């Protein structure tokens, strides 16, 4: 990896975001607002918020980074910038690492703010500590980024890229254990749940609610998700062809 092109790419991506202040505001405020809404919707049943709150903290970065990355990559392809980048000395690995660094930092800010509000004013308890939840949230963000990057190769317009959210993200949310534990699902659905990376991310977050430290199961879950990120990035890199038809 070469540092300057990678850092320049991360700085460029952040600078693009900085010029779009409304997007930044939405990225940072919406998770807080939704968590607050969630808390008061389930005011009569506080255990629901306690159980699902930590999972939501990890889901926001996953969903938003999936969307932001897939749209950003469709733009790179349609505006001619990707074609041009591939004629410069920039390596594909540096491009991907630059994106990962930039969106990882955004996810850190997003998850940090959301966790601070959830654990502070909203009174959510996470025994494993706020840093564990934020760390898992950033891993989820990178998972969303990597999947968005890969799937964006199959979208030729921004409209199509947006449609990948319900197509690729919602099934994972339904099957990941947020709504019902996978053990209670039929065998086929449990298999599906077992092969989807988000299941492991949610499992780690669920564990973080009650565990007092990072457990072996949590570390295994995180490792599985990290492997999925690497696999999705490798698939994504394979879609960044220098020569196109």
């Amino acid at each position, binding site marked *: 990896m070469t540092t*300057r*092109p990678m*850092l*320049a*790419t991360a*700085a*460029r991506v952040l*600078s*693009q975001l900085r*010029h*779009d202040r409304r997007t930044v505001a939405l990225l940072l405020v919406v998770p807080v607002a939704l968590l607050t809404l969630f808390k008061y919707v389930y005011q009569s049943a506080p255990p629901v918020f306690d159980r699902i709150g930590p999972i939501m903290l990890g889901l926001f970065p996953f969903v938003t980074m999936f969307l932001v990355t897939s749209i950003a990559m469709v733009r790179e392809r*349609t*505006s*001619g*910038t990707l*074609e*041009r*980048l*591939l*004629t*410069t*000395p*920039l390596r594909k690995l540096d491009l991907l690492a630059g994106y990962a660094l930039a969106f990882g930092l955004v996810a850190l800010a997003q998850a940090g703010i959301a966790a601070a509000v959830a654990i502070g004013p909203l009174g959510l308890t996470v025994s494993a500590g706020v840093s564990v939840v934020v760390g898992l949230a950033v891993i989820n963000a990178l998972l969303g980024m990597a999947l968005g990057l890969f799937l964006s190769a199959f979208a030729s317009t921004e409209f199509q890229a947006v449609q990948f959210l319900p197509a690729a993200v919602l099934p994972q949310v339904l099957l990941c254990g947020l709504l019902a534990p996978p053990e209670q699902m039929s065998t086929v659905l449990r298999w599906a749940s077992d092969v989807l990376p988000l299941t492991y991310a949610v499992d780690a977050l669920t564990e973080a609610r009650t565990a007092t430290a990072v457990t072996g199961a949590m570390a295994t879950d995180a490792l599985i998700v990290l492997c999925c990120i690497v696999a999705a990035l490798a698939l994504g890199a394979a879609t960044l062809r*220098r*020569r*196109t*038809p």
Partner: protein
Amino acid sequence: MNAIEVSGLVVDRGGRRVLHGIDCTVPTGSVTGLLGPSGGGKSTLLRAIVGVQRVTGGTVSVLGQPAGSARLRRRVGYTTQELSVYRDLTARGNAHYFAALAGVPAAAADEALRDVGLGGQVDLLVGRMSGGQAARVSLACGLLGRPDLLVLDEPTVGLDPVLRRDLWVLFAELAAAGTTLLISSHVMDEAGRCQRLLLLREGRIIADGTPAEIRSATGKDDLEEAFLRLIELGGGAEHAEVAR
């Protein structure tokens, strides 16, 4: 010596043959115009030269190496027909980013923006610029690192005549300093500003030579009429020889 040598280049796109065995050369240190109607294969030929086009057959050699070689990436500047810069960055932001990729200092980026006449608007977002200003940002990003070869796909589209003249002066200066420029255009009145012309029509080169050679071969003073004459003659490969 030739900066670009294309031999027997065949390209199919979407099941359709776009380039039918192109043979052409671009001499080093010249401004070569690639002219012809839209849809004639100009962009495809340029994409093959910068190494981003999947080709069916033939060879393309650039600065003595196969097109698209990793070592060429510091030596070839390219602007696509789309803007190929980031609309949500300022002119300076774009130039500094491409400078970092080319491995040249940020000062070179500011200089390139001045070269294309954008000194005053460097802090404006490209998305807020006029088409002409944005096209110049794109061009400035291609000049970074003083590449040996500049491949520019329709760089003067939509620019006002004064600006177009200024850019052609800049192109001539770059060529005088040793840069090779290959510039596509569908505007025939730009042909006269090139030292050498390639006319591409329906995926075939129908003329290849200096403006003077093409004028004398066709007996027409006006290059647009000269090209019309070539097309009327049948536009086959043999007429390329006439023009040579």
